[in-house]
C-alpha cells in the first residue's frame, strides 16, 4: 500500500479502516487458500521452503521422465523378448528335427525338413523386422530403417541382378569343386610307386590337405604344408591286409574330414572308395591306391564339400552389411583363386541397419535412473541371429536329386553341420544369449521403476507438505478470523456512533 499523506485529524479513523482492510485481505487470502488448496501463488510466498518446492518439482519431473522412458522401453523389450523367443525356438526346432528327419526329396528337390525350414526362414525374417510405431528393434541405432530385406530377395537376389544366397552358394560350390578331373581343387598324380595329391594353387577354395599318415611300414607319407600343400605316398613294400593310408581334408568351413583307405587283397582293382587292392608289386598297389584316392576325393567333393561350401557362402552372405560387404568368389568360379568384397550393386545386403555401433546392446540405451543406463538395442546381424539365418538359408536353397547317389550323403553332411552349428558352444553367441541380455536390462529397468515409484510418492508427500494447505487448519483460521472481524466491525460501528455531537442537544 503506497504511502499516503498524513491527515492527523483523521488518523484514527483511517488507521482503523486500514486495519480492517488488512484483516480483510488476510481473510481473502485464506479463502483463496481454501479454494485452491495452495499456500501461495508465488515462490516468494512459500517462505524458506521454496527451495524444497523447486527441488522437489525438478525431482518429480525427472522421475516422471525416467518412468516414461521405462514404460516405452518395457513395451519394446517385451516385444523383442517375444521375437527372440520365437527365433530361439526356430533354431531349437531345426536342430532337433535333424535327429529325426528323413531323406525324402520330393519332385521339387526339397525334403520335408526343407519345406519346414523355408517356413521358419520367412517367420524369422518377420521377427527381425519387428517394429512398433516406426521404430525397428533389430536395426541398432538406425531405428528408422527396416533391418532385413524380404526373404525372396535374400534367397534369390533381385531383378537388378544382385546376388542372393542361392547365387553365392552356387558360386562357392563351383569354386570349391573346380573341375571334375581335380574335384575339390586337388590334382591327383604320381607314377611308379608314388601316389600324390596336390592342391591346384594357393587359394581359399576346395579341400585343404592338412595331414597324411600311414599305418603300414611299407608306405611312407609326406605332407608339404604349402600353400599349395601336397601329399605324397610312396609304397616301398606292399602293405599287409588291413593296414591303412590316412589323410585329412580341411573343408572350406573349417571342418575336417578324415579319409582312410584300407589295404585289402580281396578288392577288385576298381575298388570302392573305402580301400585299395594290394597288388602284386608295390607299383601295382600304387596304381590301385591312386585310383582309390581319386574315388575317395570325388565322393567327398560330392557330399561334404558342397555342404561345407554352402555353409561357408551362406555365412559370408549373412556376415555382410553396408559397411562390411560380403566376400564373394572373384572371377570364373571353377578357376577362381581369390575372394573379393561384393558391392551393393552386385550383391544383396540382407541387413540394412546400423553396423557401426560399438555394442549392439548399447546401440539403443535407456537412462532409467540418474546413474543407470541399460542397453536394449539389438542388431539382426549379431552372430547368434546371423548363424541361425545362414543355417536356415542353406536348407532352404539346396535341392536334392533322389537319383543322385551322393545327394543323401550331402544332405546328411548338411544336417550334421546345422546340428553342430546351432548347439551351445562356449564363447559363441546364440539367439538365447541376446535374449538373456535383454531380459537382464528389463530386470534393471523394473528395479529402477520400483525405486522411482517409491521416490515419487516421497516427492509428492514433501511437495504437498510444502505447497498444500491443511484444509482443517485453514478453515479453523478462517473461522477465528471471521469471528474477530465480526467483533471488529461491530466495535467500529459502535465507536463511530459514539460521538459527542450526537449527545449535544
Amino acid at each position: 500500500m503506497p504511502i499516503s499523506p498524513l491527515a492527523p485529524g483523521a488518523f484514527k479513523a483511517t488507521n482503523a479502516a486500514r486495519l480492517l482492510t488488512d484483516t480483510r485481505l488476510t481473510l481473502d487470502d485464506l479463502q483463496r487458500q481454501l479454494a485452491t488448496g495452495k499456500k501461495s501463488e508465488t515462490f516468494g510466498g512459500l517462505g524458506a521452503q521454496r527451495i524444497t518446492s523447486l527441488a522437489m518439482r525438478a525431482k518429480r519431473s525427472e522421475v516422471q521422465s525416467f518412468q516414461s522412458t521405462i514404460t516405452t522401453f518395457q513395451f519394446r523389450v517385451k516385444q523383442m523378448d517375444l521375437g527372440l523367443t520365437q527365433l530361439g525356438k526356430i533354431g531349437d526346432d531345426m536342430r532337433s528335427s535333424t535327429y529325426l528327419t528323413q531323406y525324402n526329396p520330393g519332385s521339387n528337390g526339397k525334403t520335408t525338413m526343407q519345406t519346414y525350414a523355408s517356413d521358419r526362414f520367412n517367420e524369422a525374417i518377420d521377427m527381425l523386422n519387428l517394429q512398433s510405431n516406426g521404430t525397428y528393434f533389430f536395426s541398432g541405432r538406425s531405428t528408422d530403417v527396416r533391418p532385413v530385406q524380404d526373404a525372396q530377395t535374400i534367397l534369390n537376389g533381385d531383378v537388378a541382378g544382385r546376388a542372393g544366397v542361392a547365387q553365392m552358394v552356387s558360386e562357392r560350390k563351383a569354386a570349391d569343386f573346380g573341375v571334375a578331373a581335380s574335384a575339390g581343387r586337388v590334382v591327383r598324380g604320381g607314377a611308379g610307386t608314388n601316389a600324390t595329391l596336390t592342391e591346384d594353387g594357393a587359394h581359399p577354395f576346395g579341400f585343404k590337405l592338412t595331414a597324411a599318415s600311414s599305418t603300414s611300414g611299407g608306405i611312407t607319407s609326406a605332407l608339404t604344408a604349402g600353400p599349395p600343400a601336397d601329399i605324397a605316398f610312396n609304397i616301398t613294400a606292399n602293405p599287409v591286409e588291413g593296414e591303412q593310408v590316412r589323410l585329412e581334408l580341411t573343408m572350406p568351413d573349417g571342418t575336417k574330414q578324415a579319409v582312410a583307405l584300407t589295404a585289402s587283397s580281396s578288392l577288385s582293382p576298381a575298388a570302392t572308395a573305402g580301400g585299395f587292392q594290394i597288388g602284386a608289386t608295390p607299383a601295382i598297389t600304387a596304381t590301385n591306391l591312386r585310383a582309390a584316392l581319386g574315388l575317395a576325393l570325388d565322393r567327398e567333393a560330392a557330399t561334404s564339400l558342397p555342404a561345407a561350401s554352402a555353409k561357408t557362402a551362406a555365412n559370408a552372405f549373412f556376415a555382410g552389411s553396408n559397411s562390411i560387404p560380403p566376400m564373394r568368389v572373384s572371377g570364373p568360379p571353377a578357376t577362381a583363386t581369390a575372394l573379393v568384397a561384393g558391392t551393393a550393386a552386385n550383391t544383396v545386403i540382407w541387413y540394412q541397419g546400423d553396423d557401426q555401433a560399438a555394442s549392439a546392446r548399447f546401440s539403443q540405451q535407456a537412462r532409467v535412473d540418474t546413474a543407470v543406463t541399460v542397453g536394449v538395442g539389438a542388431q539382426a546381424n549379431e552372430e547368434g541371429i546371423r548363424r541361425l539365418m545362414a543355417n536356415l538359408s542353406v536348407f532352404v536353397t539346396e535341392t536334392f536329386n533322389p537319383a543322385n547317389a551322393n545327394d543323401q550323403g550331402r544332405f546328411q553332411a548338411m544336417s550334421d553341420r546345422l546340428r553342430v552349428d546351432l548347439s551351445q558352444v562356449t564363447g559363441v553367441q546364440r539367439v538365447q544369449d541376446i535374449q538373456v541380455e535383454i531380459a537382464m536390462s528389463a530386470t534393471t529397468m523394473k528395479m529402477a521403476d520400483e525405486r522411482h515409484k517409491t521416490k515419487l510418492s516421497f516427492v509428492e508427500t514433501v511437495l504437498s507438505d510444502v505447497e498444500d494447505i491443511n484444509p482443517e487448519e485453514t478453515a479453523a483460521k478462517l473461522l477465528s478470523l471471521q469471528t474477530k472481524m465480526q467483533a471488529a466491525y461491530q466495535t467500529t460501528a459502535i465507536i463511530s456512533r459514539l460521538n459527542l455531537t450526537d449527545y449535544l442537544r
Partner: protein
Amino acid sequence: MGLMGAMNASLSGLRVTQAQMEVVSNNISNSSTVGYSRRQLDIRQRVTGENTSGALATGIQRQLDVLVQKQLRVETAGAAFTDVRARYARQLDQLFGAPGQAGSLDTSVNTFTSSLQTLTANPSDFTARAQVMSTAQQLASTLNGLSSDIQRMREDAEANIASGIDRLNNAISRVADADRRLTVNGQVSASSAALLDDRDSAIQELAALVDVRVVNQDNGKVSIFTNSGLQIYSGDGASSFTFDQRSVITANSLFTTNPADRGVGTIRFNPSGGGAGVDVIASGLFRSGEIAAEVAMRDKTLVEAQTQIDDLAAALASSLGDRNPTTPVTVGANAGYDIDLADVLVPATLAMKAGNTLMIDINTPTGPRRFQVIATDGPAPNPIPASEGEGGATIIRYDRAGGFAGLQAALAGALPAGFSATLTGSTLRVVNTSAGNAVTGARASFSTSGLTGEGPELQMFVDLGGGNIPYTGSLDTLNPQRRGLAGRIGVNANLVADTSRLVVYNTTPGSVTPQGDSTRPRLLLDRLTNAQRSFSAGSGIGDASNGFRSTVTQFARRVVEDQGANAAQAMNVDEGQKLVLRSVEARFSETSGVSIDQEMSDLVQIQNAYAANARVVGAVKELFDMLLRIGA
C-alpha cells in the same frame, strides 16, 4: 474600574469566544484534511496599567510536537523506500510464476529437460523431436518474456523517477512560496499558521520523495538538506532538479557516470544561484525515499534480475553448443591436459571464437590458481574487467589474430614457474614440470558454428538479436553479447527447419549418424542436468570471489529461489517499516489531530462563555438602565 470596564471586559470576552468559535469551526471542518494540524487560540488577559481589562486573543497556535514531526519525516522517507522496493519485488516474484504454473521459469526448464529425456529414449520418434522443439521454444519465450517484463519495469521506474522529480520540484517551490508569504506578513497570524501548515505539508511530501533534514532559520525560514548534505533549499530562491528521462529502456541501457555511455536518465541538481550542477545519481546523494528506491530498482535490483536470466540464457546456449576438446595426458612423471585448438570444420583455423574461453586450473605449493583465456577479435576492453571472468580467475586477454602460437605464448607467459604450455601442430599441451605443482583441470568452451560435423554438441539456442547468430559470449561488440541475451535468445532457425538435426550430428557419407542414435540427445541432457558450470558473480548469486557453480537446471531453480527470497525479504522489511511509520503517525496525531469530541466540548464551553459574557453585557445594560431611570 466601573461598569464600562466590565462592559469592555465582556465585549473582549465576546470577541475572544467568537475567535475561538472560528478556530473550533476551522478545526472541525478540517478534521480530516491532509496536513492540517489542530489549532488553538492563545488567550491572554488584557492588562491595562496594573489591571486586567478583559481577555485578548494573541494568536492561533498550531498543536505540534516538533520532535515527532522530525521523526515522522525520517520514517516517511524510509517507508516510501521500502514500499517501492516491496512493490517491485512482488512484481518480480509474480513474473517467475506460481509453483507448477505452465509457462513459469522452473516449469519451462523442467518440461524441456524431460522432453530431452524422452528423446533419448526415442531419438527417431518425430513426436519426441517435435516435443523437444516446442519445449525449447517455450523455454526461450519464457526467458524473452521475463526479460521484456523486467525492462518494462525499469521503464516504469524511469517514468516514476521523472514524476518523482516533478513532485520534488513542485514541493520545493511550495516551500519557497510559503516562506516568501510568511516573510511578507511579518507577524504570526491565523493565515501564517495556515502557511506554516502548508510549508510543513510540502516538506512532508519532500520527505516521502527524498530523505531530508530541515533546519529552522532565525528568520522563520527553513533550510532543507538531504541526509547526504546536499542543500536543496536555502530559504532564498528555489533550486531545482532536472531529469533527462529516456523513453525506451533495454537491457543495454545502463547507468554509468560517463554521459556518453549512459543509457538511462540521471537526476541533475541545479542550485538556485545558478552555480555548477551536480549529478545526483552518480554522487549517490539520495539515500532514502521514493526516488532513491526507484533508482535502486532501475539500476541495481532489476539489472541484477536481468543478469540472472541472461546468465541462464547464456548457460543454456553455450552448455549445449560448446565443445570441450580437452584430454588428460601424462608425460613421464608429469601430467596435464592436451587441448585441441583447431576448428573441426576448418582445421587450419582456431576453434576459439571471440568470447570463447579456456580455463586452466593449477595447484601450486602456495595454493590453487585459475587462469581464464578469453578470446577477442580486438575491440574488447583491455584489460577485460574481472566481472566478465569466472570468480577468482586470472584473465588472459587473447587476440585471435595471434593464431595457435599466440595462444600458447599468452598462456606460457602467464603460467607460473613449474608449468609449461607447449604447442604441437594445433594441440596445446599444459603440464606441470616439477613435483609439487599440478594441473588440476582444463575446460574449454569453444562454440560450434553449425548443426553437423562438429561432434554431438548442438547450437540449439542462438542469439536472434542479429539474425540467427551463434552465442559465443563475445565482448567485442558495444555491449557484451551476454547482456540482454535472455531477451534475444531463441531456438536455432536452422534446427527448426530440420528437426532431424536433434539426432543427426554427422552427415559425412559412410558415417552418417543413424536416426535412432541417442548420442546427441544424451549429451544435451547431460550438459543440462549433470555438467557443472560456473556462473558470473554479477548475478548476485553465489559469492563474488568464486561465483556460483552448479548445473544449468540448478541455476534456473536458484534464480527463482533468489527472486522469491528477495520478494519475501522486501515485503517483511516493508511491513516492519510501515508499523514504525504508523506508530509515529499515531503519536503525531495525538498532538496535532483534531478530535471532534474535544472540539464539541470546547464548543460547549465557548457557548457557555459567550452566554456568560453576553449575560454580563446584559447586566451592565440593566445597571445602566437603572442608573438612567434614577436620573429621570
